[in-house]
């Protein structure tokens, strides 16, 4: 454990202040990561709490760039939660990523909804690893180097995984009749009126 009985009160105070700064800088990102992947909000909050509890106990091991370390810790805790859920319902879905909901706060645009639906289905058809790689980049907004640290591989390996995952996503989209290739007449979703990126 990082906490040591040899710490002076001043040391403890400094440590607490540093942790507080880390917490305030990263809590929202860790919570968002957990909410996206946990079965429900309650589970997400449990994951976040344990993540920061681990960070506090092992504060000396937290690197200067803490977010990938925190998300990597949350990832393991989530894996554990899913494992426990599988024991409860062996035939149930493996992860909440399977249940992506189409949320539409923008004005109803049937074409846009259809494309989003196709995207969601194609994404859901991918394997766990492909979905994780793509979501770390697109949803959590991580750079390749950061995302690689979350899953515990080199940046080069992660880039390769991302490349392959995109290729498989394209293949799934093509299988449903959707193409995002160059020269496509239809503009991408974010360029259409009434849609937002929501981030």
């Amino acid at each position, binding site marked *: 454990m990082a906490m040591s009985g040899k710490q002076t009160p001043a040391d403890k105070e400094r440590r607490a202040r540093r942790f507080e700064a880390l917490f305030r800088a990263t809590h*929202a990102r860790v919570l968002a990561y957990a909410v996206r992947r946990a079965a429900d909000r309650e589970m997400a909050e449990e994951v976040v709490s344990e993540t920061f509890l681990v960070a*506090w106990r092992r504060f000396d091991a937290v690197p200067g760039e803490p977010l990938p370390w925190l998300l990597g810790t949350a990832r393991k805790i989530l894996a554990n939660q899913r494992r426990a859920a599988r*024991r*409860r319902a062996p035939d149930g879905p493996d992860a909440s990523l399977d249940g992506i909901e189409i949320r539409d706060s923008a004005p109803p645009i049937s074409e846009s909804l259809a494309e989003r639906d196709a995207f969601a289905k194609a994404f859901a058809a991918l394997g766990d690893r492909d979905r994780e790689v793509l979501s770390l980049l697109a949803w959590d907004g991580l750079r390749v180097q950061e995302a690689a640290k979350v899953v515990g591989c080199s940046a080069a390996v992660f880039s390769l995984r991302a490349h392959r995952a995109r290729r498989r996503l394209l293949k799934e989209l093509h299988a449903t009749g959707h193409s995002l290739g160059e020269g496509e007449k239809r503009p991408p979703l974010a360029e259409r009126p009434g849609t937002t990126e929501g981030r």
Partner: protein
Amino acid sequence: MKTARERLEVGLREIDPLRARKPEAETGAEELLASILADDHPSQRGGAERRRFSGAKSGARSPWFGRRLAFAGPLAAAAVAATFVGLPGSGSDGVPTLPALARAADVAADQPPADSAARYAFMKTRSTSSSVTVASGEAWITVQPEVTEVWLASDGSGRVRTVTERAHWAGPGDRAAWEAAGRPPFMSHGWGGSSQQSDLPQRGTEVPPSASALAATMERVSLSQLPTDPNQLAELLQREAEKEANGYSIAVRTLDLAAVLLNDPQASPELRAALYRAEGLIPGVEYLGPVSDELGRRGVAVGAESSNSGAPTLYSLIFDPSTSQVLATQQLVREAPSALPEDDFPRVESTLFIESGGVDELGERP
């Protein structure tokens, strides 16, 4: 014109589960931060009392304790997803303790008296244990569930029935690893799917080796002799745990024992209340926060960390403070042994307390 890759990124952001949601309100963030920081200030949590017991010296061995603790190890409790760290609190008798334990103690004290008229105390648990196999450069884990039912009379006689369920892979990666290793034979003890029943002799005869750990730990030779003063009980628990530690931390051992005693239908409300309060006085026992056990039952966990197995492991006792019912003991192995991929951890083993109560016949259930 965007490239196909850029369009993919846009499309992926469109299906972000958080898209179009209002920013997640960080409810509880400040409370979480405050509680984590409070965890490092023992003086705010009855630290003086806790330190008082850390130097407790071993006394004479209670006749019943040695036998209980000798079998307590396999029930080693453990921990799981922790949430909020406990804030300072105290029980109604003024003994500083963790608030969740204090609440459970208050509820336990108000429970009806134990059913001492029943001939047998019955308890049913379901436990899971993991086995790691390493071969041909691969490593995999199998999980073995086991259901145990115990009927125990005041004279020590009774019955133990154990159903060993079929073992299963911990996950798809484990089966893949086994196949990559060339599908070597393992599980020399079989894959389970069997049951065993044995009768327990009256007290005075050693419990046979085949008897379950649960039977031994719940043997209530002298429940009535246990002190109901939390301070005295905490000292007693620690003294005995120290003698039978076998590499476990004292705090972990006391959790094991408390779990079984709290589930014993013959334990009086006063004893159960004292057990909850006493656990809050054991150095190293911390509040871990709200959790769900493997049956999905909501509770809170207290626990302690130990590296007795060579890997950092968090042991916990999960209970429902609103009913004072013990739900489970669990152990969370936090880091993978070098042979296993990091992705496979943490791992959890557990003992779920399914049912307990007084019955009059062997084989009868409450």
